[in-house]
């Protein structure tokens, strides 16, 4: 660690190390590894987080911090499995539309108040409150909580939300439709409890370090916007004695190359590896460069509306374009960060999702190219009548590299002429959302670890279905999957239909590509959602 950072950190260390001292001098209770004296984890944020208010936060960086500061009903373990959080257990009725959570009696807020079922009721009502107008209010709708949609729209009073405190330690949730994966959704920050008294006292400023009261393993002690933030051990946390890491520091570093340099200079314990640099990093620092699958996909979507290109209305043309994409070149040469190639829309890493045997995946690239040529010729496109269209992506070096590679593959193999266009993010979203495109880049990260979070994008009424793909059978299967005990075969069939009709071209699935200090213990690389909790991490002695 750089000595200047170290000196400045030393000055900031407070008495919160007292309970940590038992670990600091010792060894890890499970692994027996020697622990570092300084249990501080420093990582990079690519941008200032939006908020640490559980019902308001809308970005990944903010959600990571919020997950440390607050604790919801359930948590995830290192593999993404559900483990108890504030709730010790839950039960559900036969129809799976009423869930009852039992809350632990030793959970406390950082000011010493007990965490009660009422705190969850308050928080969930807050999330749908039109007055708060949370950008994540839709998540409560997605959870199918009774009356959530009506309350958000202002058509019912907030008190009619299907959540109530039976007593201080029993929370009952009523759903408008059965939802087998409901408990999984309670690991999301929107569902974390909120301290009513503090919020009413301080208003929007309640999340500032000087005002905040939280119930997670850490408390928010310092925040210099656009520069750094610090969260430190919460002495009131019910599992404080098993928490090893004392302190977590974030540094906002917008440029990922600068972040990498600062990591290499020892200022950070973790940073992202810029695209294309992973091979060099893993050669120079094999024990620090890590890559693992994430729950996100990268695709291009066809505009299938009336106004879209005539050619794209022919599934054979769409399939030809998908076939001609050599995904190996994209993942091995362009991104080069261990990303899995994608032949299906939902990533293989998704829980309970079996990748269907898609014909294209088992072919060799020359076979695919051959078939692509045949299909395109069959559709009436060739040297005399060349196919041409425009593809758009949001301005970004990595997306540009991928787009250039794709357009070259299509040109060389199929003689298709493609015009590339990039747009600034918000303009891009607006244009894509209004179907002002031929072929547009898309990417999606799962909101929860279940295939529907991806496949719902291709449901005809979905607000995220930018290509306006419309297949009655797909809609039917997805609706059925919502309430099914075993939705996996239904998802497999949806993927088969998508592979046949090709409304989208899946390119690759994301990988988490990090430089991680070898001192950091227990980073959950198997948690594909990357829902990590600082309380489960530790720093080994050097």
């Amino acid at each position, binding site marked *: 660690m*750089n000595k*200047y*950072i170290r000196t*400045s950190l030393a000055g900031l260390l407070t008495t919160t190390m007292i309970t940590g001292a038992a670990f600091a001098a010792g060894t890890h209770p499970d692994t027996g590894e020697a622990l570092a004296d300084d249990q501080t984890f420093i990582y990079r944020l690519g*941008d*200032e987080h*939006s*908020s640490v*208010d559980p019902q*308001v936060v*809308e970005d990944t960086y903010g959600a990571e911090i919020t997950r440390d500061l607050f604790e919801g009903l359930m948590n995830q373990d290192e593999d993404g499995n559900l483990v108890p959080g504030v709730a010790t257990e839950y039960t559900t009725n036969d129809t799976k539309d009423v869930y009852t959570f039992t809350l632990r009696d030793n959970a406390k807020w950082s000011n010493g108040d007990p965490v009660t079922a009422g705190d969850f009721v308050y928080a969930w009502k807050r999330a749908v409150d*039109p*007055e708060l*107008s*949370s*950008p994540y*209010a*839709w998540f409560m*709708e997605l959870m199918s909580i009774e009356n959530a*949609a009506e309350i*958000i*729209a*202002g058509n019912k009073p907030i008190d009619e939300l299907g959540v109530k405190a039976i007593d201080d330690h029993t929370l009952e949730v009523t759903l408008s439709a059965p939802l087998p994966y409901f408990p999984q959704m309670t690991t999301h920050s929107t569902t974390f409890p909120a301290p009513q008294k503090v919020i009413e006292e301080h208003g*929007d*400023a*309640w*999340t*500032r370090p000087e005002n905040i009261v939280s119930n997670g393993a850490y408390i928010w002690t310092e925040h*210099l*916007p*656009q*520069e*750094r933030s610090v969260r430190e051990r919460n002495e009131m946390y019910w599992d404080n004695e098993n928490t090893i890491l004392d302190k977590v520091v974030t*540094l*906002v*570093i*917008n*440029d990922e*190359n*600068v972040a990498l*340099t*600062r990591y*290499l*200079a*020892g*200022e950070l314990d973790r940073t992202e590896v810029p695209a294309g640099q992973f091979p060099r990093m893993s050669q120079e620092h094999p024990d620090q460069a890590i890559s693992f699958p994430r729950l996100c996909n990268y695709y291009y979507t066809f505009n299938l509306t009336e106004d879209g290109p005539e050619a794209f209305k022919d599934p054979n043309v769409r399939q030809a374009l998908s076939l001609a994409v050599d995904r190996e070149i994209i993942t091995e040469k362009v991104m080069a960060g261990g990303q899995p190639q994608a032949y299906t829309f939902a990533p293989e890493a998704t829980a309970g999702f079996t990748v269907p045997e898609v014909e294209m995946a088992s072919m060799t690239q020359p076979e695919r190219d051959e078939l692509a040529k045949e299909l395109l010729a069959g559709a009436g496109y060739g040297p005399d009548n060349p196919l041409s269209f425009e593809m758009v992506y949001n301005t970004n070096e990595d997306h540009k590299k991928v787009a250039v590679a794709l357009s070259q593959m299509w040109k060389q193999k199929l003689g298709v002429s493609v015009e590339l266009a990039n747009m*600034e*993010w*918000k*303009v891009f*979203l*607006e*244009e894509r*959302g209004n179907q002002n495109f031929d072929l547009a880049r898309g990417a999606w990260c799962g909101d929860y670890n279940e295939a529907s979070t991806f496949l719902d994008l291709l449901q005809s009424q979905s*607000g*995220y279905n930018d290509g306006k793909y419309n297949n009655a059978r797909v809609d039917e299967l997805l609706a059925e999957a919502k309430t099914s005990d075993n939705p996996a075969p239904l998802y497999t069939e949806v993927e088969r239909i998508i592979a046949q009709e090709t409304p989208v071209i899946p390119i690759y699935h994301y990988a988490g590509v990090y430089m991680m200090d070898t001192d950091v213990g227990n980073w959950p690389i198997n948690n594909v959602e990357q829902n990590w909790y600082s309380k489960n991490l530790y720093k080994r002695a050097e």
Partner: protein
Amino acid sequence: MLAYSLRRLLVAIPTILLLIVACFFLMHFAPGGPFTSERPLPPAVLANIEARYGLDQPLWKQLWDYLYNIVVHFDFGPSFKFKDRDVNDIIAQGFPISLTYGSLSFLAATTVGVSLGIAAAIKHNSWIDYFAVGLGIAAQALPNFIMGPILILTFTLWLGLLPGGGWNGGQWQYLIMPVIALATSYMGSIARITRSSMLEVLNSNFIRTARAKGLPTRTVIWRHALKPTLLPVVSYLGPVFVYVLTGSVFVDIYFSTGGLGQAYVGSALSRDYAVLLGVTILYGALTVVVNLLTDLAYAWFDPKIRY
């Protein structure tokens, strides 16, 4: 001079108003809004959010409310992106940072640039001159986005002497690289302008007269040549001062200083209207004031100019 200054400040009011109105409409006409996101919000949620911030009102009403709040309450409105901060908070946090390293860069660029230019002119065609000219050109060719990476690689990665970014309350270790990165190219320009201006002044009649009456070189330079030499430098410095404060976007982002440049670019990208407008107004007002100061400085440097 007081009357002149007051007159200039009065003229500044409509100028800034015009700036606000122009920015306001440009901003609203840009595609995408503050709540356009990858996950399009359900209409009901979007309607709630827009109602909360008054974005459901007609544009003229929004503009009127905005101006009213500034004039009456000195309130530049809420940030749409950061719920627990408003524009006043964001400026109060970022501006002192930008101002600190901006002023230091300005000071460094001016003192080093002017000294280099004067030395080069006095020792015209000597090795000092060649060295100063060479350094000036090299520095001018190194904009901050080239200097940034060079500095970080050298001082942070290879030598391990300085932290690679951050602010830490403005401790000196954190200031060095941002100041050098920002000051270098301006320093080069200032050196060149000073040198050519000094050479011209040294060849003018009143200097020949001063020398002819037997004044020592030092007096000739300091008492007679310096002031007229600096006149063109000052007209260059006015805009530079505003540039180092406003044009520091790259430095802010590259060195993660937490200055206003980061907030400015961020607000433009996220369509955080109030933050974008607030910072624009600040920069506009700053330009007006600095221009006035520059004009007033002319009178001191050149007795022929009177207001």
